[in-house]
């Protein structure tokens, strides 16, 4: 099932950024005491761009995501999202501006069903979230949730409790949650971790099939997946940006290979 183009009106609104970059980090640092998890990170991502952030464990990739989404505030530096300075915003304010994220360890609502999880995700950015009324038969949000469940191939288990899903299914649900609410930009944190080869191809299919205006950054250990779904790569090491370039360049770069030889290769 492929994802077609979005109609002009909605697409315009969703990606109407003028000339602003989707994501702009300037001098972002995060220190835990004396430990520099992020050191002076500056990067620019265009709307609709597909970026991969690679690096060994401890390079600071997840910390980078945490700073962008607002899980914690950076020690210094600024973050701009589509031209707006979100450095001091609480997490839910950033999300309402069209930013989404998946987690390395699935953060799902284990006691609720698959459909409920996606429905909640759709509610989060819509006006109905405080509603005390149950959705009516033809509720748009319910329908959207059902569609999203189809997109990630989970329609057979949509009424099952999350705690009873397999690991791979839970990871798929993570993605559905991130796609809900028509985001402008998504952060995927190691979506391929623990997936079987077939599941990985499905994942690549889902990612490459996302609408054009939706940009994303993907953290991945599996170089194969990462290089297939991205058009530009940022390599991190010890909390700083080590190198940036096109996937092919990075793959062939001798310094990158030296760094990865003998190190973690994403298994």
């Amino acid at each position, binding site marked *: 099932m492929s994802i077609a183009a979005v109609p002009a009106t909605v697409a315009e609104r969703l990606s109407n950024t003028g000339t602003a970059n989707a994501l702009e980090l300037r001098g972002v640092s995060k220190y835990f005491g004396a430990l520099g998890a992020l050191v002076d990170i500056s990067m620019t991502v265009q709307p609709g761009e597909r970026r991969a952030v690679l690096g060994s464990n401890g390079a600071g990739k997840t910390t980078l995501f945490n700073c962008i989404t607002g899980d914690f505030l950076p020690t210094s530096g600024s973050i701009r999202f589509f031209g707006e300075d979100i450095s001091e915003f609480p997490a839910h304010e950033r999300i309402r501006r069209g930013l989404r994220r998946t987690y390395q360890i699935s953060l799902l609502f284990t006691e609720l069903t698959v459909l409920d999880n996606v429905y909640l995700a759709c509610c*989060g950015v819509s006006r*109905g979230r*405080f509603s005390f009324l149950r959705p009516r038969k033809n509720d748009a949000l319910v329908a959207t949730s*059902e569609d999203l469940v189809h997109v990630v191939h989970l329609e057979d288990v949509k009424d099952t409790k999350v705690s009873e899903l397999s690991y791979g299914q839970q990871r798929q649900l993570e993605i559905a949650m991130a796609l809900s609410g028509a985001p402008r930009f998504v952060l995927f944190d190691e979506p391929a971790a623990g997936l079987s080869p077939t599941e990985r191809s499905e994942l690549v299919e889902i990612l490459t099939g996302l609408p054009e205006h939706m940009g994303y950054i993907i953290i991945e250990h599996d170089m194969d997946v990462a290089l297939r779904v991205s058009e530009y790569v940022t390599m991190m090491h010890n909390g700083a940006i080590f190198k940036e370039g096109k996937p092919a360049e990075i793959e062939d770069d001798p310094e990158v290979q030296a760094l990865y030889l003998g190190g973690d290769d994403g298994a």
Partner: protein
Amino acid sequence: MSSVDQSDLAKVQGFYFSSGSSLRPAETKPQSGPSIWSAVPSGYWVLAVLLLIMPALVSDFTLFQIFGWTFILGMIALSLMFLGGYGGMVSLVQMSVAGMAGYMVAIFGPSAITDISLGWPWWLNIPLALIIAVIFGTLTGALAVRTEGIYTIMITLAIASAFFYFTRQNYTIFNGFSGFNGVLPPELFGVDWRQAKPFYYLTLFWATLSFLIVSYVSRSPFGLALQGVRDNSRRMSALGFSVNAHRIAAYAFASLIAGIGGILLTWQSAQISPGTAGQGPVIDILVIAVIGGLRKPIGPFIGAFIYVLLKTFAIDVLVSLGLSGDRFQLLVGMSFLLIVFFSPDGILGLWDKWRESRNRDPLTERSSGGLQ
């Protein structure tokens, strides 16, 4: 501009995922589920009929003292269950909120303490009392939600104690130690609502209404979001929900239910005093909610029924065991301990376990048929 509204989503949904016709809303399974007749378990229907005809079966005393009290305490415990079971916040301030509502009805409305009570009519003093009670509960919630969940019990207990001490010491508004007596329900439709049968139906009505509303809301976006906040507040933030706003709203909703219960409680004994919301009753509400079970709205009412039975007949039980009738608290405490030890989900938990064991396939040790 920062939120996407439903009409946009409707457009996006149609085009986002190219579908042909297979995903049009007509095929969507409605969230409201199967028809109301099959959705509600038959046990509830039997109970409903039984409750409706109860006045024909039992004495006035039972109606007023046992059932009336069960419905009232059940409602207040329901407010605790809503916050604790669906929201993950165990709040001990519910009884105080109920007490606040009761006090406000006595102060704004008619009572025997004529130099304080304003004597305003029911359509003024009741809404006013509820509003004040909700404000009280909401402010408490606002203070409690900014700390980690485990502090909620402590903070709400401290505030409940503050309320108790304040009402006991303040004579200008709360009439101190003696409180207010002569607080009677208004004579609406020519009925004396403190007679056994009318009072029974009055409390049954409100208890049923709050039960139904809580059950309904639990599956609404607000209720689902609240459960999401309970399970994973970090994720909820990352989905765009303001976690604190939801929690505070939950306190407001729960306070309304507790407030109604408080007014009924005041009418039942026609009086309210600091002891009504004293530390004993405050903890008793928690005991009731836990004994019944925090998972489903019927739990608090089961717990209340057991508590009321214990309280009414405990003396006989104790004497038959050879103990003095004064040892009621000991009995309650021990029962509570036993339940928490063996079935933390209360009576409902025991019921679920029993049903599960009946359905268990002896070969695979797995039980068939889902639990609700």
